[in-house]
């Protein structure tokens, strides 16, 4: 069997690539993972082609690694054992916007800006993470459980139903999308994620492509607030931020709520680089909580009014005297910031994480707010051991679900052209990870070498995962070598 010929037979010759230059683009990404070349890249345009490719992979025992974004940061789409990279970017249709049920059905290749523009026409918004790259797939963000900026909902993810090609090449649909006639000709609207029989949607999340290829998904979207009031609350010490966020979230205030250190906030806000960045770094407080109070769908100003009153009560209680809606020198920010936060990073600007040195390696985990101070201190101490300037570490803490937990993210910036720097960052990354894991950081999304660290400790979980994987993927062709597989 000639795999290439078979691929061509499925997707057409113009959508199969095996030229080294083309393959190189999939062999590495913006993470510190090692390079690994695929044998082919195929770009299908529909679920049937995906299914056929996966079935081919099973017959030929050639690995398949799906990807749907135009840029990658975590090493999860690098084909560790070679094989076929399944690039789903041609599958980029927004299939349906269901205004009534506030849901959007999108193919894997739909990007954040693409979806956000379409939703804007319907006064809707998808719940986005912090400034996703303009080439980032919305579906991937949801599958990989990236935290959203708005912690107000009593759930952490917005995934509803999905269509997936299972590793054995079967087409399957999760939740209420599994019924006859779905998605368009049944009485169901594809909004119930559970089932059939088991929680398939959960097995597919955080899977880094190992449990199947999701071809489309129905996701929740929400009304886009038309009236907002932004607060940037400065803090000298991180220890004070947790109490503030706890109180704000316990009283159910606000939409977007996130904590950034001066480095990250400066990277985001700087217009002219590097002048504005350096100036902001000096003038911004060490820590800033961004809190957006948003008007409701009806009587928006009244909602903001009572929320602001409650916010001021909290500030008084915590002796926070400085509750400005503005940052000095940035008078327009109050109006702009909610809009900025609800969009992907603008394509015309250098991605904010690349602005400082060209690349950055994020390390993130879940914890509870009361521990963020200890983690921050530990990260800084470890960075010092590697002579990494602590003022150049980006910190981003995202409360989740009313501050029940938080996504903690630290970023180390480096020049990707400088091999020595890359190596140093790699060592720093893993050393920090070891320290954090010993302090009980929970790596819910263990990318790259973190997977070994995590699954060594979560042995019973790894065993159970492997059982599931063996059942769903008996030939082990879906992203082999990833996670604990």
């Amino acid at each position, binding site marked *: 069997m000639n795999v290439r010929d078979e691929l061509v037979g499925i997707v057409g010759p113009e959508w199969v690539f095996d030229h080294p230059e083309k393959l190189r683009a999939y062999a590495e990404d913006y993470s510190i993972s090692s390079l690994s070349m695929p044998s082919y890249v195929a770009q299908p345009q529909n679920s049937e082609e995906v299914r056929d490719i996966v079935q081919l992979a099973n017959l030929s025992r050639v690995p398949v690694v799906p990807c749907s974004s135009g840029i990658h940061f975590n090493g999860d789409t690098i084909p560790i054992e070679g094989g076929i990279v399944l690039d789903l970017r041609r599958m980029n249709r927004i299939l349906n916007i269901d205004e009534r049920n506030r849901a959007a059905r999108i193919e894997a290749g739909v990007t954040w800006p693409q979806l956000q523009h379409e939703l804007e026409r319907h006064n809707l918004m998808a719940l986005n993470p912090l400034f996703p790259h303009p080439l980032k797939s919305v579906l991937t963000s949801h599958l990989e459980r990236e935290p959203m900026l708005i912690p107000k909902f009593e759930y952490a993810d917005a995934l509803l139903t999905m269509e997936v090609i299972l590793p054995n090449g079967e087409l399957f649909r999760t939740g209420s999308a599994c019924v006859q006639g779905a998605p368009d000709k049944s009485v169901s609207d594809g909004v119930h994620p559970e089932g059939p029989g088991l*929680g398939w949607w959960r097995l597919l999340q955080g899977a880094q492509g190992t449990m199947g290829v999701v071809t489309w998904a129905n996701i929740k979207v929400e009304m886009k607030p038309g009236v907002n009031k932004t607060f940037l609350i400065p803090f000298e010490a991180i220890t004070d931020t947790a109490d503030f966020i706890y109180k704000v979230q316990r009283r159910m205030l606000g939409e977007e709520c996130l904590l950034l250190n001066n480095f990250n906030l400066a990277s985001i806000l700087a217009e002219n680089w590097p002048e504005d960045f350096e100036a902001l770094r000096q003038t911004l407080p060490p820590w800033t909580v961004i809190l957006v109070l948003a008007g409701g*769908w009806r009587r928006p100003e009244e909602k903001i009014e009572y929320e602001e009153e409650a916010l001021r009560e909290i500030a008084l209680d915590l002796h926070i005297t400085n509750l400005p809606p503005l940052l000095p020198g940035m008078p327009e920010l109050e109006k702009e910031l909610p809009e900025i936060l609800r969009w992907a990073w603008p394509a015309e600007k250098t991605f904010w994480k690349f602005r400082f040195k060209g690349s950055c390696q994020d390390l993130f985990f*879940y914890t509870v707010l009361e521990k963020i101070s200890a983690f921050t201190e530990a990260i800084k101490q470890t960075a010092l051991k590697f002579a990494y300037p602590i003022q150049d570490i980006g910190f981003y803490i995202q409360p989740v679900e009313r501050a029940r937990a938080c996504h903690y993210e630290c970023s180390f910036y480096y020049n990707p052209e400088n091999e020595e720097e890359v190596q140093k960052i790699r060592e720093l990354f893993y050393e920090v990870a070891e320290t954090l894991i010993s302090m*009980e950081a929970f790596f819910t999304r263990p990318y790259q070498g973190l997977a070994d660290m995590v699954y060594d400790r979560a042995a*019973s979980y790894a*065993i159970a995962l492997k059982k599931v994987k063996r059942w769903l993927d008996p030939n082990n062709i879906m992203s082999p070598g990833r996670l604990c597989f």
Partner: protein
Amino acid sequence: MGIPREAYDAFQSIVGSEWVSDDPAICAADYKGGAATGIRDKGSVRPACSIQPKSSEEVRRIVKVCNRFSLPYVPTSTYFSATCAPNRDNTVMMDLKRMDKFDIDYKNMYAVVEPGVSFSMLQAELFKRDLFTFVPGCGSQASVLANNLHIGDAPMGWRVGLGYRRLLACEWVLPDGELLKLGSRSYLKDYFWGEGPGPDLRGLLRGNGGPNGGLGTVTKLAVKVFSFIPKQLEPQGIQPKTTFKLPEERMRWYNARFPSLEQTLDAIYELGRCEIGFIVMHVDPIFGYIARSRGKGANFFWQEWDKAKETLDRKQGWLRVLLTGFTSEKQLVYEENVLRDVVTDYGGELRPARPLDETHLQSADAIAANAIGRRFYSIIYFESVDAGLAVGRADAKIKERYTPPLADTYGLPGWIVPYDFAHVAKQELLNYGDVDDVEYLSELHNECRKNDIKIGAYPYMEDPDLFGPFCFNYHQKLRGFKAIFDPNNVSNPPKPLTRN
């Protein structure tokens, strides 16, 4: 036949002789009852013994003995679902009520519970610290752990979602006796987060039909709890007329009547867009009659319900809305204004209701349905609000063929309970029969399910063998999971597959 003596001896040495028994009366009392008696427990047989472990370790050891001797076991806590009924000889009922410890992290809003903890116990402790837990429709006597793994639905879900959104980390004794920990518990001591690491095996714990004990026993589960108002609710009254007096400056009930069900649903969607309310639910009129009859007897109910045949406007729709100023008293004022606007805009009439709560924040009087129909049976769906109405109407039409002997519910489509601010909903067709009507209820269930397949409705799927061939053969995949995790088929067999 009985279980082998060696197995019984092993059980005694695990839990102590006082906590295991093969006394026929103990066994007989341990396999009767539960919701959908006569329907979900067909083919049930008396178990061979009942055992009460106190810890995960004891559960593991018991399960290993069951595997060694090929003894089916059924993990239960309150047994309020007839799916607990054993249907294999020599079944061991593993009653988890002794495992009743819980621990609350007030700051990070979650509670770790064992199977023997009831909602009312947990709720009482949470109320002291301005937190609350979701209380299911079946009543706060239910087990927090079991209910969250089963369905976990109630009108509170308007704000806090359905059960699948509320699980965090857990400890799980697999059918082979091995201990699996999920979420943060997979390698930490904490239970605060439920996802992963990596792919989320909570997907095997439940799933619109779910394993129902067929893939092992969860012995500790962390569940989300939520921020409440900084006021204590005041209990009042003597049974049966007990209630909470609500602090009116923070919590108020409203009733809204709309000229049609369609307008009612439109209003629900709008309220979802506005993101107001603690509870929003469309009410089947029969509930009002049942609630008014509570404590007065079934005679009173039937007298009033029979009169309603002529007087009830079947086109109308009713909403019950509980508004709550979680943030402040002014939030309540704001939400009332919005509610008033919405109801007016959608052609409805709003009326404040009594500032009392009998049944949603603690208690839930769903059992009252059995006072008027000793075999009450629900046909349930989880999908969109609109789908709920369409399916409800379709089922109500089918039900006409079974009425009588089933109670006449006047063609009403049941009630619709929206969750997640109207992103999804439960639709429940309410069917009241007597003990002799079980076959009619079963046939109604089957007819509705066949119709579901035709029209693409998404019911609560207890029959994988029926639905599987029309839903991507998921029943075969379930069979695979069952074989992997329960190779000896001892964990509440044949769950998650179809019984009988």
